Every structure is written in structure tokens, then in C-alpha cells.
């Protein structure tokens, strides 16, 4: 049983079906990518998982049981629509949010200060939140989310509004969590971050689960049976099934029976000087567009 598991979860809002029989599982210690276009049902799925909303049908389990206040204390959530008490001082806000997660006042204060330093905002502890920039506010919210050291952390679009330096910082924080064996659910539209961080992903569209599984397997599944070959020789003239040439490199469609490794052997056997060789792997944004754009 995973850290967070959905079994046949459905949810309707009036006439609109937000989720339709979704089943998936987030495993311990992984970074799980929750993908989908706007309005696909990702936020509803997260809310149901964290017991903010109740499903109309299906089961949800959190740490192997129905979500309860004690199990929810082991989680943290950074919603896409982020909110803060703008009039509060940064230190007060973090201490308050820490206490809501069950930390004592002193522990919440200490953790707040430590995490502010960690995200490079130790100097704004006494400032009011309203005086911070959007990016700084977002880092405060990320600190608030991670300060209770949650076993499961759900981050909805954690990179939006951050500059490249801070994107790298948040990426590093997520990597640290994986190394520490903690689980992270990452909902984002930044597909290169998904490729860089996620172990497994689920793609939801119109309330239905379109794709679910290991990231590398999914990319493999949706990849074309092609390789890129960088060589000065004319592969077509050599009778090989090269289909396209582009600025010194060939895009070669492999025969259905061939494998990339076998094809490389064949090239070498034929005396082709290969400068560089790369099997084509579909990018996540291509898969996303392919599936959501109607191609799937």
C-alpha cells in the first residue's frame, strides 16, 4: 500500500464531473508528478487526498488508512492558489502554521527561523508579509510547507513565479526530500522539471486518468522508433534506412524489428564513422500535447 492511494475516486460538482473513477498510488520516498491541463481535476484529486474535500465515490487511503487528523499531520500542502495573512509578520505566520501542524510553539518558532535561513530569507523574519515580493512570499510559503518535515508533501506549481536561482533552490529541496526517503507529490506544468525530478507520473485529463506509471517507461512508450546519428557520411547512399538529414545529423526511423543498440552495431559494421548516436526519447511536453491535444 502506497503513502497515498486512490481507488475508483469520483467527484461531481453539480453537472460537472471533476473526477471519474481515478485509481493511482503514490509510493514512499518517490517524487510523483501529477500532470494535466488546467481544470483536469488535479487540485480536486489533491484536496480529496488531503481530506479537504470528500469524494462522491471511491476510497482514499493516506499512510494505509482513511485520512484522519493524525495522518494529515504527517503531510503538508502548498496549494496552487497560495494564501498568506498579509498583515502578519513572517516569523509569526510560520510559527502559527507550524503549530497548526502539531508543533509546539517553541518548536514551530525554531523551525520557522531555520527554514527562513534555508530559503535565504532570514533577514525578513520581522517584516510583514505584505512588504515582501511575490517570489519572496512564495519562498516563505514553501518554508511553511516544509518546516514540519512532512513525510508526504504535496506541492502544486511550486516553481511558478520563481527566478532560475530559486527554481534551482526548490529543485534542490525536493531532491533532498527524496534522498531523505520522504515522499513528494509535484503538480506542475513545467515538464522539464517533471523530467528532472519525478520518478513516476500520472496524467489526468477531464477527470480521467490517461497515463500512469514510471516516467522513463512512459517516455519510452510514447517515443518514436527513431535514432539520431551524427556522421559525415551519406547514410542513404550507403543503403541504410535513414529518413531525414538535418545539419550533419541523420534522423533514422528504425525498422520495427531493429533495436537502437542493434542498429548502432550495424552502422559500425558498415564502417560508418559515428560521431554521436542517440535514441530518440519523447519529451514529456510532447507526450502531454499529444495526449491532451487530442492525439491520444
Amino acid at each position: 500500500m502506497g503513502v497515498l492511494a486512490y481507488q475508483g475516486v469520483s467527484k461531481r460538482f453539480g453537472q460537472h464531473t471533476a473526477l471519474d473513477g481515478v485509481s493511482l498510488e503514490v509510493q514512499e520516498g518517490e517524487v510523483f508528478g501529477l500532470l494535466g491541463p488546467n481544470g483536469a481535476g488535479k487540485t480536486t484529486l489533491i484536496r480529496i487526498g488531503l481530506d479537504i474535500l470528500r469524494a462522491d465515490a471511491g476510497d482514499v487511503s493516506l499512510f494505509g488508512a482513511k485520512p484522519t487528523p493524525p495522518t494529515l499531520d504527517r503531510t503538508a500542502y502548498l496549494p496552487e492558489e497560495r494564501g498568506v495573512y498579509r498583515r502578519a509578520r513572517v516569523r509569526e505566520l510560520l510559527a502559527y502554521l507550524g503549530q497548526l501542524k502539531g508543533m509546539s510553539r517553541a518548536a514551530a518558532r525554531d523551525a520557522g527561523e531555520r527554514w527562513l535561513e534555508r530559503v535565504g530569507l532570514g533577514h525578513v523574519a520581522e517584516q510583514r508579509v505584505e512588504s515582501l515580493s511575490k517570489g519572496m512570499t512564495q519562498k516563505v510559503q514553501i518554508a511553511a510547507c516544509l518546516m514540519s518535515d512532512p513525510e508526504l508533501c504535496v506541492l502544486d506549481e511550486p516553481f511558478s513565479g520563481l527566478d532560475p536561482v530559486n527554481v534551482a533552490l526548490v529543485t534542490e529541496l525536493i531532491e533532498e526530500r527524496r534522498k531523505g526517503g520522504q515522499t513528494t507529490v509535484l503538480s506542475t506544468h513545467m515538464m522539464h522539471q517533471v523530467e528532472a525530478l519525478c520518478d513516476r507520473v500520472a496524467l489526468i485529463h477531464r477527470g480521467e486518468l490517461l497515463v500512469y506509471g514510471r516516467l522513463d517507461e512512459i517516455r519510452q512508450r510514447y517515443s518514436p522508433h527513431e535514432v539520431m546519428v551524427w556522421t559525415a557520411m551519406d547514410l542513404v547512399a550507403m543503403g541504410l534506412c535513414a529518413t531525414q538529414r538535418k545539419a550533419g545529423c541523420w534522423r533514422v526511423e528504425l525498422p520495427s524489428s531493429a533495436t537502437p543498440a542493434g542498429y548502432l552495431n550495424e552502422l559500425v559494421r558498415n564502417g560508418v564513422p559515428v560521431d554521436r548516436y542517440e535514441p530518440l526519447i519523447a519529451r514529456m511536453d510532447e507526450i502531454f500535447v499529444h495526449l491532451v491535444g487530442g492525439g491520444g
Partner: protein
Amino acid sequence: MRIQRIAAVARFEFLSVVKRWSYLLATFGLPLFLAAVSGTVLGVQTYFLSQRASESSQFGLVDEAEVIDRSSFVEKDGELRWRARENADEVRLYASRDAARQDLASGAVRAVYVIEDDYLTTGEVMAIESEKTPLLTMRGTSIEPLLRDLLRKSLIEGRLDGEVHQRVLSPAYFVRSRLGPKGEELVDLDEALDLLVRTTIPLFLGILLLTALLSASGYLVQTVSTDKESKIVEVLLSSVTPEEILAGKLLGLGAAGLIQFAVWSSMVVVVALTASAALAAFVSIPWGALAAAPVLFVLGYLFLGSLMLATAALGANAAESQKLTLGWAVLAILPLMVLVVLLEDPNGILGQAMTWIPFTSPLTVIIRLSVDASGIASWEVLGAMLVLLTSTWLSIRVGARLFRVGFLLTGTMPSFAELWRQAR
């Protein structure tokens, strides 16, 4: 529900409110402001009234019927004058109506009274005012009762023996007493002052209770709107249950409201103690009402507050939340709308009925205890509190469920059927 989380929410909400300038100003500034304004108004009024009272007023009297006993008059500057009141009104006796009119026209006298020839048959005394005489001067003057006394005294002079003579002049002196806790107690309180004392304190206490209730509930509406508008709702709900948020907000903001009410009530206590010291036994301080007030405030606040929180959560913004909660406020104000009836007959059917309605009971019980504590039984007060407590428990339960639905709403209002489904 987890006490530690509720305490954290309560503490945060409490500090958020009490640190605001608007709160500090309302809590400590308002009583001072009211005291300053009423002090100034009373001071100015007292000054002008005392000035007016000390002014010497001259009146003219023409005795055509020749019934006035001249022994009360003394001769001064060739005229007969009667000092009707010490250092105040003086009446000049004129031999003719024309002479009196001349002085009236010149402003030497404020008014002329003519006891006409046929007075003994008609009883008519003509009062002539000049154009310069202010409209209210004659109506409000005390000269006419004094003239009436003079006429009475003149008419019976020498015709009745001593005691009867005295009783005709002064037929009754009402010695007032009131049944108090220690039996019958003599009081020497003017009817108007009595009414003032008996209505002012209940009214004042009632308005304070209501203001504090609505003020504290207003903070609740504001905090829910802030949470919704600042989009922090989901963070809160992923950490604590709606019931814990609701309870924390109720307690934190209730504490802020209670402090406000305590400060305001202390003003009533100070006024009551001052009045008590000044008027000795004349004023009955509604100690029962003052003692019950904090309990009624807390219960009334918890009941009204939980309903306000739940309905405020259904609004998309502060303005909408305020509109949605207006109905509860109107229900709470009902006792003030029928205040005249409650003051006149505090223990009548209306007063008794409103004691048992949770919306109206805090204010009604306070008014009944203040006006006539002997008319409301202890079991009625305790019963009203019990009804409030039960209603509060119910409203918190239903309120918390609606709160969860409303708290996450960002678009259109849910249908009544959906709300009902969630609230069950």
C-alpha cells in the same frame, strides 16, 4: 477536536484583532469619547439651565375680581410686589390692565395675568404674552402653579380652620416607598427620575451587550472573508478540521469581544457606583443583570457567532458575507425594537416568550433583570441559558459543516439542497 490546535487558532485570531488600532480605539477610546461627549453636553446644558433659572423674571397681575390676598405683597417703588420664588420670579400687582400692558409692551414684564371680573363664576385667568415672549417660556414657567397657589390661598383665607386650611393648600404629600429585599423601604425619588433610573441602566446595558455581540460577530465575518480572500483556506484545512478552525476563531475573537464588553461594562459599573453613592437608596443598581451579563454575552456570542461564521463562509467576499449575516443581526436586535413594551411590562408575555428564543434571550434577560429582577425567576434565567447552550451546540455542529462547504467556495453559491445535504 484537538485543544492545542484550537488554542493556536484562537491565540492567532485574538492577537490579530487586539493589535489592531481600530480595536484599541473602539475598546478604550469609545467609552472615553462617549464620556467626554456626554459630559460636555450635560455640562453645557446644566450651565445654561442654571443661568436661566437664576434669571429674575417679572410678571404682571391685574386683579379685576379683587380676590387676591394682598398680605403676601410688599410695597416697592410705589408698586405692590409678590416674590413668588426666592431670587427668581416676581409678580407686580397692577391697578389697571392698561398699565400692565404698557409694561408688557416695553418688556418690563414677561407676561401679564388678568383675573377678570367674572372669575368666581368662570375661573378664567387671562394670560397675555408679548410678541417677544419665547414660545416655550410661558408653557415651561413655574409661575402659573404659583399663581394658582396664591389664588387658592386668597380664596380660603379666613374661611377654614388651620389644619383644613393647610390641607386645602397642600392636599397630599406623597411619601414613596418600594418593596425591597429587606422589606418596605422609603424612597424619596421623583417620578421622572425614577423612570430615568429604571430605564437608563437596562437600556444602556442592553445596548452595550448588543453592540459587543455584534462587534465580536463582525470580527468573525471579517476573519472568514480575510481567509477566503487571501486564499489561505486550503492551507488551514489541510492542517486542522473545520470544527477546530471554527472553534478557534470563536474563542479567539470571543475573548477579544469579551475584553471589549468588560471594558464597556465597567463604565456602567462606574456610573452605577457613582449613582449609587450620589443617590444613596434611591437608585436600585441591577447587580443581577450586571452579574449575568458576561455569561449571557459568552453564550449569546457563541450561538450568534457560530451561525455568523457558517453563513459568512458562504459569501465570496466581505461585502457578500456581511449581507448574508445581516439576518442574524436583525434577529438579535429584536428586543431593542420592542424595548418600550419590555420596559413597560418586562415580565409580560412578550418578555417571557423572548426569554426562550436563543436569538433574543441574552438581551431580553438582561433587560428583564435590570428593570424588575423580582419578576424573573431564577429557573427562567437558568433555562434561557440552557436553551442558549443547546442551541449553540447545535449551531456549532451545523455551522462547522456549512463552514467547510462555504470555506472552499470560490464561485457560485451552492444550492439549498446541496447545503442541506452537507449540513446533515
